[in-house]
């Protein structure tokens, strides 16, 4: 047990304890106490994560045997230990999860304050349980531990989306998220079974070193595809993304934590972690890139016409996740992780800002009834503006650097990727500033008797911290272009040991030369600024009365490309019809009869066996004698087999 392994288990244990205290004591603890326990647990985790980060930066890692705490599943020579692996990638995720998680907990103490005591505690218990599972997911040293965390976050996501369980729509949204994720999880599970069958282990380092020596094979392609199916479900990619917008039924801080900053990036973490396997499966890599790219553009186009502020952000999240997958697919693992990080900051900020607005507007989520909030909510206004600039990719805010890194890598892989990606980025800038303008600029369109007011301190505190992070986080990943120093990209240097194997296996794309890169940067920034101005100009004069029913193409966008309807017609209805057939014909005529038959036989046997138990000692002894005689007969007179 090394020093680091003694530290590592503390990180997830704090939220677990928080979950137990808040969950069990929900009827007894006061709201203040619940808030302190919930946030305090995260603060402690965060401090521990910082210590771990320091150790990892100093070169101390927790890999292999050292990270084993106990044997979890063991039979014969096969062993799945309960082990953690702490390396550079994990430590970054730890900081993001616990850091952003802490801010969101603090924010929640005031956002959820209207709930009754028991429900308030239930909320924090779920949230802590979520963080615990998420930490397991990123800390596990093998795919099984990751899977446990994976399922845990799925469960918590379900519980929190359906947090207001009295509303039927919300519980339906929770169910949808659960079922969609289940499809992905099946892929993940199959991948694990393949890994066990082929490699005889689930531990990352063992699998990767074996895979490296064996080279690529069709089996690895299958495994990576199955893993990617899991990632598509969890990280809401085409075609499994539709649950994420519906997941906005949950409380807004939940959307910020689970459905923007952490859980949905689990798929990116998984692929980044398995970079060696993916590098051995080039065809999967291309698929990842294409799915990511399509999702990015597709979701961005839907976001253009949404009027619900949370829906805009939800589609924007789907779209940004698409960029991350694009990054992974073209081999820019660092870029993808970088974007996970910056996205965690600015998207959590945007969600929390939206929450602040919703809080102030008495749970009105329709942007058409906002407007002019700049005057009433100065802090929210400034922080949201920073978030919007960051996500749109305006230098020097963080989103610029991370998105640019992905786009440049995409350009190196295939210029068409770049063009489509840039188109998506322009749409991003447009819908974000459409949202910003409709909310904060222009005149107030809401109810003039209930003027909004700035949110309480814990909420603005979280907003300000996140805004600072969203503004400056980009500087840890300055491109070589600016620094003229290959060592200048701090994050890339830090993560290099994790990705060096994967990157060594990949065919290197020629990095575009500096002139091209400057041109690409200038073009993208120029276009984005133009689009922003256009959006602000268009929506500044927005009037509720002028709002016409969307026509033509924008109607398609407003209806989200009718994807839900298409799924309904193509998948759900036929499945229901088949289900109906099975239910009415095969089930009742065949299976039911068989099952009930077995049940009846057991029941019948049960009743008959009871009669053997007559209570008569003589009978019992007789049966025993007969049994001994039968055994003797078998022992002495049956031929040897």
């Amino acid at each position: 047990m090394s020093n680091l392994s003694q530290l590592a288990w503390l990180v997830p244990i704090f939220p677990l304890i928080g979950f137990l205290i808040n969950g069990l004591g929900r009827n007894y603890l006061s709201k203040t106490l619940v808030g302190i326990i919930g946030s305090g647990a995260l603060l402690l985790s965060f401090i521990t994560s910082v210590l771990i980060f320091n150790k990892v930066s100093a070169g101390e890692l927790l890999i292999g045997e050292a990270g084993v705490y106990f044997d979890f599943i063991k039979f014969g020579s096969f062993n799945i230990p309960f082990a953690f692996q702490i390396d550079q990638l994990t430590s970054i995720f730890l900081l993001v999860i616990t850091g952003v998680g802490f801010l969101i907990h603090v924010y929640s103490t005031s956002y959820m304050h209207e709930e009754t005591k028991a429900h308030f505690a239930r909320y924090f218990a779920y949230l802590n349980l979520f963080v615990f599972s998420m930490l397991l997911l990123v800390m596990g040293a093998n795919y099984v531990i990751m899977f446990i965390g994976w399922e845990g976050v799925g469960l918590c996501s379900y519980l929190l989306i359906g947090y207001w369980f009295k509303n039927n729509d919300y519980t339906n949204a929770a169910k949808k998220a659960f079922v969609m994720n289940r499809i992905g999880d099946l892929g993940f599970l199959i991948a694990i079974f393949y890994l066990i069958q082929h490699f005889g282990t689930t531990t990352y380092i063992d699998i990767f070193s074996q895979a490296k020596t064996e080279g690529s094979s069709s089996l690895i392609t299958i495994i990576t595809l199955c893993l990617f199916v899991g990632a598509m479900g969890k990280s809401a990619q085409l075609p499994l993304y539709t649950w994420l917008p519906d997941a906005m039924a949950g409380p807004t801080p939940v959307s910020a934590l689970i459905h923007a900053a952490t859980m949905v990036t689990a798929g990116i973490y998984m692929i980044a972690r398995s970079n060696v396997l993916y590098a051995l499966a080039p065809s999967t890599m291309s698929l990842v890139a294409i799915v990511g790219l399509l999702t990015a553009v597709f979701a961005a186009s839907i976001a253009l016409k949404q009027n619900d502020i949370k829906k805009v952000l939800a589609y924007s999240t789907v779209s940004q996740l698409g960029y991350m997958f694009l990054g992974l697919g073209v081999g820019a693992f660092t870029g993808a992780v970088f974007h996970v990080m910056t996205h965690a900051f600015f998207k959590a900020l945007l969600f929390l800002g939206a929450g602040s607005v919703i809080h102030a507007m008495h749970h009105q989520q329709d942007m058409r009834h906002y407007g002019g909030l700049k005057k009433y909510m100065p802090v929210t206004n400034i922080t949201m503006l920073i978030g919007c600039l960051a996500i749109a990719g305006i230098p020097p805010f963080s989103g610029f650097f991370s998105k640019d890194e992905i786009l440049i890598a995409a350009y190196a892989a295939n210029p068409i990727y770049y063009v489509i990606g840039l188109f998506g980025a322009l749409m991003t800038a447009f819908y974000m500033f459409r949202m910003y303008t409709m909310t904060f600029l222009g005149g107030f369109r809401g109810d003039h008797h209930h003027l909004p007011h700035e949110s309480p301190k814990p909420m603005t505190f979280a907003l300000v911290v996140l805004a600072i992070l969203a503004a400056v986080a980009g500087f840890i990943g300055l491109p070589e272009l600016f620094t003229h120093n290959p060592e200048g990209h701090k994050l890339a240097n830090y993560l290099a040991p994790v990705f060096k194997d994967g990157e060594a296996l990949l065919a290197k794309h020629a990095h575009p030369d500096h002139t091209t890169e400057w041109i690409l940067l200038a073009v993208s920034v120029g276009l984005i600024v133009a689009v922003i101005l256009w959006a602000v100009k268009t929506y500044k004069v927005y009037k509720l009365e002028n709002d016409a029913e969307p026509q033509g193409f924008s109607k398609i966008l407003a209806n989200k490309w009718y994807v839900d309807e298409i799924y309904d017609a193509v998948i759900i209805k036929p499945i229901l019809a088949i289900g109906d057939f099975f239910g009415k014909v095969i089930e009742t005529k065949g299976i039911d009869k068989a099952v009930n038959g077995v049940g009846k036989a057991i029941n019948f046997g049960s009743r008959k066996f009871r009669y053997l138990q007559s209570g008569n000692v003589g009978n019992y002894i007789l049966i025993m004698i007969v049994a001994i005689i039968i055994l003797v007969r078998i022992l002495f007179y049956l031929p040897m087999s």
Partner: protein
Amino acid sequence: MNLIIISALSGVVMMFSGLFVKNNRTISYIATALIIFLSLATMCELGAKSWFNIPQAEAMLRTSVYGKLIGVILTIATTFYFVLSGKDIERVGKHVADYYALMFFVLAGAGILLSFQNLLMLFLGVEILTIPLFILTGAQKQNLKSNEASLKYFLMGAFSTGIMLMGIVLIYGAMGSFDLSVIGKKAQFATPIHGANLMGLLLLLASMAFKVSAAPFHFWTPDVYDGAPTVFTSFMATIVKVAAVVAFIRLFEGSMEPFHTSKWQILVSILIACTLLVGNITAVFQQSVKRMLAYSSISQAGYMLFAVFAFNAFGKEGITIYGLSYSLATIGIFSVLSKMQDITFDGFNGLARQYPGIAFALTVFVLSLAGIPLTGGFLGKFYMISAGAASNSSYTWLFILAILCAAVSVYYYFRIIQAMYFKERVSDTPVFEVPVSKAFPILLIVVAALIILIGINPQILLQYLYF
């Protein structure tokens, strides 16, 4: 040796305390103190040497790490049993100290069964283990059912003792020794095996099957378990049963190994199949939870017998996990049951609303008994079946049967959960005969947590097997 000597002494102390101490609560406290001391003593023995060094006894009793570990498990389970059910023991009758004394004597018998090296010691151990149980079964002197059960148990117990003695005599006749190691050595050179020897072995098998209540030698079990006072049923179904299974393994492993022909597994597989079928199928139709648990304890013995089927390290590991998690879960359920007014399934209706802590712990116990993952019961079943598969994979039908039977068991176990959580309480009568203390649910949850801990990290237990 600690277990045998200290538990026998504790039994004597308890008998005297019955003379001098009039307060029943005090007697329970004394018994609890003694059992805690006994558990610590067994744990000390596991780590270091025994406190009693009797070289002359080597030919009779020989301790092994495995036996010591099971001794620890038995005493820990008994500790929980005393703590959870102490008040119910006091309510059985007037002679509280005697009940405790008898249970300590049972533990002494179990201690002998965990370490016998001689067939005479086996016989002594079995008798010391069962004779106190006859008395405990009939402890409610005014209750006819209790008397009937006691008498039946005694009659059939005597019968099975006769079979066992017959078996021992036949083996002695063929081998000229009671010593297991001598018998084993001689048997290695005696091919083909003497017929009397085989016959003796078969009779021993039958009598041990009786003790662990394997079908078709199980008939005493439902009647006795049902008739005995509920608290003592709990003791018999858990601690006594685990001790008997381990004695069963000890008897037939190692020195008796030369006897194991391929027919051995046929015989045991028949016993297992009968036990699983009878236990599970009959449990389905029971209305009384007590009787259901009696039958389910038969089927649980069927799983434990896989260790006798396999005789490998897996089986031993499995019995360790199975023994502890099964004992804890059953003791937990019985400790609730023995406080209840109505011991049918309906008695559990709406329990969750009034006593959420108790209902939660019961749920964990039931899940463990049914073998649902994350509980010790799951790992126990998993180890047992994989032990069987590791020793002889051609018995696929048996393993499938075992798994299907586990599925059947879910039906009757989950009726408790269903009653607790999904049914409303109709009558106004209180759930419990006597008010439960505040500490009771907490203790139950501790036991439940222990079961889950075993289910997640069995190594905390198994590591002691391989010092």
